[in-house]
C-alpha cells in the first residue's frame, strides 16, 4: 500500500493557525461563549423579524458572516482534497463549537441558508463523509479561490451593493430606489474620486455594483475552466452560492438591470473612444453570459448530485 500524500496535512497545518489569527473567527467564538442561546438567537435573527440597525449588532453579525466564510473555505478545501479528510480532534471540537451551536446553525441553515458550513459540520461530526478530489488541478482551484476571495472580501462598496441586493435598506435607499437613481451617470458615479469613508451609501452602492459585475465576469470563466474537477468547481460556486442560489431570480434580474444601465450610459456618452466603446460592449456581453451561467444552477449540480441533496 502506498503512503498517503503528506501535503494535505501540511496545507492544513499552515492554514489552521492562520485561521486562528483571524479576528472574526475569534470574535465569533467569543460571542458564542458570552451569549446564551436566547441572546444569540436574537442577534442572528432574520432581518424581516426586526430591523438590524444598531452599530454593535451590525458589527457582531458581520463577525459571524466572516467566520462562516472562513469555515466555508475549509469545506471547499475538503472537496478539493487540499486538506486531509480528518482535521484533528481539537480542530473539530472548535469547529463544532461554532457551527453546532443551535442559533448559529439556524442562521446559516434557515435564515440565510448557505450549504458549505452545514456540510462541514456534518463531516466533522462524522455524519457525512464529503467526497474528495485529489489532483493538483483541484488544489489549484482551491488556491485560486483563496486569492480571488481575498481580492473581494474587504471591499466596502461591494458590501453595500450586496446588502441592497439582499433586501437591506439604508434609510430610504433600497435596491429599487438605487437602480432607479442610476439614470444620470455623472451623478451616480460621483463617488469615484472619494475615499470609501466619504462616499454616500448611494455612491458606495454604485461603485459596488460595478465591482459585483467585475466579480461575476471573473468568477464564471474560472469555474468553467474547472470542469475537470467538478467537485471543486461546485464547491467554489457554493462558496458564493448565497448570491446566486437563494436569490437567483433577484440577482439575475438585478444584474440585468445594472447591465442595461451601463448600456444606456454608453449610448449617452459623447466622449468615449471607438476602442473603449468596443471594450465596454464586450464587457457587458461577457458579464451577461457570466451571470446567466452563475444563476442557472449548472455549477450546483456536481455536489447536489453526488450527495443526493434536494
Amino acid at each position, binding site marked *: 500500500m502506498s503512503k498517503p500524500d503528506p501535503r494535505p496535512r501540511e496545507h492544513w497545518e499552515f492554514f489552521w*493557525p492562520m485561521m486562528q489569527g483571524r479576528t472574526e473567527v475569534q470574535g465569533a467564538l467569543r460571542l458564542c461563549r458570552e451569549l446564551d442561546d436566547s441572546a444569540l438567537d436574537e442577534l442572528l435573527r432574520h432581518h424581516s423579524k426586526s430591523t438590524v440597525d444598531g452599530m454593535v449588532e451590525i458589527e457582531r453579525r458581520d463577525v459571524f458572516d466572516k467566520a462562516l466564510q472562513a469555515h466555508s473555505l475549509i469545506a471547499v478545501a475538503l472537496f478539493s482534497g487540499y486538506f486531509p479528510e480528518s482535521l484533528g480532534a481539537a480542530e473539530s471540537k472548535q469547529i463544532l463549537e461554532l457551527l453546532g451551536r443551535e442559533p448559529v446553525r439556524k442562521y446559516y441553515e434557515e435564515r440565510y441558508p448557505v450549504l458549505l458550513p452545514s456540510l462541514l459540520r456534518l463531516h466533522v461530526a462524522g455524519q457525512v463523509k464529503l467526497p474528495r478530489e485529489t489532483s493538483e488541478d483541484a488544489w489549484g482551484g482551491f488556491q485560486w479561490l483563496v486569492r480571488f476571495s481575498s481580492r473581494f472580501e*474587504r471591499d466596502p462598496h461591494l458590501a453595500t451593493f450586496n446588502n441592497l441586493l439582499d433586501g437591506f435598506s439604508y434609510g430610504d435607499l433600497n435596491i429599487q430606489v438605487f437602480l432607479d437613481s442610476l439614470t444620470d451617470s455623472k451623478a451616480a*458615479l460621483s463617488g469615484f474620486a472619494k475615499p470609501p469613508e466619504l462616499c454616500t451609501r448611494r455612491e458606495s452602492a454604485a461603485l459596488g455594483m460595478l465591482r459585483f459585475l467585475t466579480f461575476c465576469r471573473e468568477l464564471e*470563466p474560472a469555474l468553467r475552466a474547472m470542469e475537470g474537477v467538478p467537485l471543486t468547481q461546485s464547491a467554489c460556486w457554493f462558496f458564493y452560492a448565497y448570491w446566486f442560489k437563494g436569490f437567483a431570480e433577484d440577482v439575475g434580474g438585478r444584474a440585468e438591470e445594472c447591465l442595461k444601465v451601463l448600456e444606456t450610459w454608453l449610448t449617452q456618452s459623447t466622449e468615449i473612444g471607438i476602442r473603449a466603446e468596443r471594450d465596454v460592449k464586450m464587457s*457587458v456581453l461577457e458579464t451577461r453570459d457570466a451571470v446567466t451561467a452563475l444563476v442557472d444552477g449548472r455549477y450546483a449540480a456536481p455536489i447536489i448530485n453526488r450527495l443526493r441533496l434536494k
Partner: protein
Amino acid sequence: MSLTELGIQYASLHLDPSPLPGDERSCVFLSKRPPTALVVFVHGFRGDALETWQPFDRIATGSEAFREVDLVFFGYDAHYSNVMASSSFLYDFLKDAVAGPEAIVSALLPKLRADRSKGYKRIVLVAHSLGAVVCRWALLRAVEEKKEWRENVKMLLFAPAHSGSDLGAVASAAFSNVPWVPLFVEAVKAKVPLVKELDPESRILTELAERVRRASPNELCLRAHRVIVAEREIVVSNLPFPGDPCPDALRDTDHVSVCKPSSRVHKAVGFLQEMLK
C-alpha cells in the same frame, strides 16, 4: 479558457496568502523554504495591495525562480493619505522586516519564523506609479539615517510617477480595474492629496529629486535598477528620474496594464527574476 490559461494551477512553493502581522492591508506569500530574498510590491494611487499586480502573485508563486523568495504585497491608504505618510509606513515595514521575522510571519507559525532568523540577502522593491515615489522617499530616509540594509535593496519601477502626471488621467486610470472605466472618465474629479502631490510642480517631487541629487553617487539604492514604461502611457511622464537608467518599454500596455503580466507581456517577470540572481 483552460486552467493553465487562467493560471489556476497548484502553487506548491509558497503558503496561501495571509495578512502581514498587524497589517490587514498588506498580504504576504511566505516561501515554504528558508527564504534568501524579499520582494515587496508597492501599488500606486487608489491601488490595492493585490489587485494592482494581478496576476503577478500567481505567476511568481508558480515559478521555481521565486522558490526561496517571500512576496509581500504592501498596502497603504492610497485614497486619502499623502506620500510622506505612506513612505513612512513602508520605511517602518522594511526596517522591521530586516530586524527580524516578526514583521513578516505570525507568531502562530514558529517554524516559519525560525526559517527566517538569518534575514534576507536581497530585497527588491517593485513599485507602480505613485508607489515609486513612496519607495524612493522610504529609501532616501534609509540613506539619511545610514541604515546598513539599504545596500541590499534594489528598485524595479513600473510607470513611475517621479516626473509628474496628468492629474485627471491619474485619477481616472486608477479605476481601470473596472472594465467599463472609459464610461466614467467624465465623472472623475481629482481632489485628493495624493493626486495633487503628483503634479509636475509638486514640492514632494522636486524636493525628492533635489535630495537624491545631493546624496552620494555611491548610494545605489536610490537609483532604480530597471524602469519599465508603457507604450501607451498618458498618465505619467516617461522622463527618467535623475540617475535612473533609460526605461524599457512594453508593447501594447498602458499605465495600468504595464504592471500586470499577461501571456503577451511576461517580460516584466523576467526583469524581476534577473534582479533576484
